[in-house]
């Protein structure tokens, strides 16, 4: 596996097929919001529920892609990506809360009988600053954590455990009312974004399109990174870090860059997730969510960029169906998925398809 699988796959299957499938999927995704604008009762109309569900899964797909960048290429399994996702979501949520409460304090603060906003809420009524926070909050946290972690060459399971502990600590912190992020309930009851009503079909459609755009952009970015020399160094780092160091590379910078990039992507996904789903609370940071993201990537196929998107879609589609049909058995199914994928599908679905193609 000298080359990123995506490159190999596209070379094998020929650019025609990849392009054809990719374009079809993209067209369907672009058609969905347009169809949702059709009048109710029309046979082709897409319900708000479906649009939200697909939009949510697309946000998860971006997370999966971000995780694939660090796990599939650099070999760093993060079990804390939910933290970055939630931080982005909270940054966007702060703006939405300010927008909903007008000049007054957000409702949960009045409930706690606070008289003024904490300092870190300053400026969040401006959309531009909220966007900066979406990037800065996860980015800076990842930078600081990554700097210390990579400096002392924490890797493998140690790194995974530390990231899990990090997101766990974040969850505990955000559960507290005193932290100033709505405690247990988090943020909800949003009204508008940039003056547009948040539940309106047109707003939903635009948010959906933005999510698709971000997904395509991150896919393109990941693809360029994977093809570049940088991507090759990352792969080398994953497979034989010491040899890479003997060749004169300093792996820290590479790791740190891809780690921070991945965190920022997660933050952006979270920022798009919150207005679509309409709620953000600390349970998004629970270690369970982050580790679930790892199974999306594993199911789809690590280091393939396309695979994680597939995995996120498959697992979340299954989850939505199962939790309605057999809510009690979903955890059995998810657990079995974890075991079967690691035992029998080390290269994921994409690896399986590739094998077919080779034969």
């Amino acid at each position, binding site marked *: 596996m000298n080359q990123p699988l995506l490159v190999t796959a596209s070379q094998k299957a020929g650019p025609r097929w990849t392009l054809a499938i990719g374009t079809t999927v993209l067209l369907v995704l672009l058609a969905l919001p347009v169809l949702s604008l059709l009048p109710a009762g029309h046979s082709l109309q897409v319900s708000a529920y479906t649009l939200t569900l697909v939009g949510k899964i697309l946000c998860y797909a971006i997370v999966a892609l971000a995780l694939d960048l660090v796990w599939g290429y650099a070999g760093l399994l993060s079990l804390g990506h939910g933290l970055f996702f939630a931080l982005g979501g909270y940054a966007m949520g702060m703006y939405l809360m300010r927008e909903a409460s007008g000049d007054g304090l957000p409702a949960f603060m009045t409930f706690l009988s606070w008289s003024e906003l904490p300092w870190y809420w300053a400026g969040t009524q401006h959309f531009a600053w909220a966007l900066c926070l979406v990037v800065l909050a996860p980015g800076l946290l990842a930078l600081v954590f990554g700097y210390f972690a990579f400096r002392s060459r*924490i890797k493998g399971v140690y790194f995974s455990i530390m990231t899990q502990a990090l997101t766990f*600590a974040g969850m505990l912190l955000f559960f507290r009312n005193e932290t100033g992020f709505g405690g247990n309930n988090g943020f909800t009851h949003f009204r508008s974004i940039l003056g547009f009503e948040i539940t309106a079909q047109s707003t939903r459609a635009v948010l959906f399109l933005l999510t698709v755009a971000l997904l395509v952009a991150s896919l393109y970015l990941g693809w360029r990174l994977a093809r570049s020399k940088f991507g090759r160094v990352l792969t080398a780092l994953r497979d034989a870090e010491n040899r890479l160091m003997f060749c004169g590379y300093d792996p820290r910078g590479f790791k740190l860059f891809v780690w921070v990039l991945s965190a920022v992507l997660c933050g952006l996904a979270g920022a798009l997730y919150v207005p679509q789903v309409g709620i953000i609370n600390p349970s998004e940071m629970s270690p369970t969510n982050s580790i679930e993201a790892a199974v999306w990537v594993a199911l789809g196929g690590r280091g393939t960029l396309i695979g994680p998107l597939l995995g996120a879609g498959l697992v979340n589609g299954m989850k939505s169906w199962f939790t309605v049909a057999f809510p009690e058995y979903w955890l059995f199914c998810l657990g079995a998925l974890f075991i079967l994928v690691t035992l029998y599908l080390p290269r994921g679905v994409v690896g399986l398809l590739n094998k077919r193609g080779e034969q």
Partner: protein
Amino acid sequence: MPKALQRLLLGLLLLLPLAAPAADADYFIAAKANEQARLLQDWAAQPDPARVELLSALQQGRIAAGDTRKLRLNNRLRGLVDNALASHQLLSADSTVRLAAAQQLQKSAQPAQVAFLDRRFASEADAAVHAALALALANLQLVDSDPAVRLAAVRLLGETGDPMARTRLEALLEPGVESNAGVRTAAETSLAQVKRKLLFGELLGQAFSGLSLGSILLLAALGLAITFGLLGVINMAHGEMLMLGAYATYVVQILVQRYVPEAIEFYPLIALPVAFAVSAGVGMLLERTVIRHLYGRPLETLLATWGISLILIQAIRLLFGAQNVEVANPAWLSGGLQVLPNLVLPYSRLVIIAFALFVVLLTWLLLNRTRLGLNVRAVTQNRNMAACCGVPTGRVDMLAFGLGSGIAGLGGVALSQIGNVGPDLGQSYIIDSFLVVVLGGVGQLAGSLWAAFGLGIANKLLEPQIGAVLGKILILALIILFIQKRPQGLFALKGRVID
């Protein structure tokens, strides 16, 4: 009978030192509530050992020891009965009875009892009872009209280390309560003295709960450290082994209750081997069916074992319900040891600390004094070389995994005695026990020991200062910084291996 006459008769009766207990009982029953109260107060001031029986019967709401008739007493009278009984019990030969009586008197003693308490105080030989009496006496003397008496009482309070002395002194120092300047200054010095003693007790209490938390972390992390050191894999389902152990305890409790109810006091002891067997069995099964196929791929193992933990949790939920189940403490584990006036060490926690150390000792013996232990250590140090020397690595892996899981099962029994038993039990300990392993270094008993107790104590000492959550976060940050200095944990295996 006119009231005055009744009073006179009662008064006469009290003057008679030889009044028979039976007569006391009769008069008490015949008297009206007010008279009963007066009688009780008088009895409390001048105790007579012969009345103990009557008073303890009264306390239980009866007229005499063997009598089945119920006696209705109002709250005030009931308080007075308690007080009078305590007063009588001070004359008991048993020092524990006297101590309990003195503690009761600290709360309920009346000014009329001062003379009696003073006499007992002077003649009391037992140190604990003496201190308790001092407090009871001081409580009374604080309201005396003579400043000299109050001064003596304040000084007396300063010598005790009791939380009640602090509240008393603080009440005295409120503006407008104490007019005498000398007494006030003395009270201030005494208060400082008491606070110092109380602080000592509080710190000891925090250290103890830290030790207790540490012993639980140790039980949770010990098995993890063994399997991690041996196989290089993190078992995310390890917390569920704790949970299985706790549920095994619950099942044993129910079975014992149903079939051998006379042994219910000792069900935790029966549960120990059962829990060990259940967890070890499940652990070995997992090793054989899943983990074995993932050797050399630690990150995948992590995910697969997470899947296993999800399945185990959901299975338990379906079997036993999502609610917590009730595991009762046997009598010999409830209650506690009073060390200082404000420090009680619960027996259950004391037993668990001892148990954790015992398990560590057993594990140490197993690893260092048996053939299996030798093999485990060999495989931990160098798997290939051990295999070349004829160590059956596959079998060793399985047994070690079973051992690690079994230890977690034992931890589950301990946990069931102090916390809730529910399907999510394991989840709440898993991250902490990972941190213990990370901090202590892999495959090191000593490392796990120090890391578990260190983390436990640090957690509990930070908790009152900055809160539990911030304390946890701070500890996480400290661990990350610590790993900068010692990437291999506190105790690293020395070697020259590089990948």
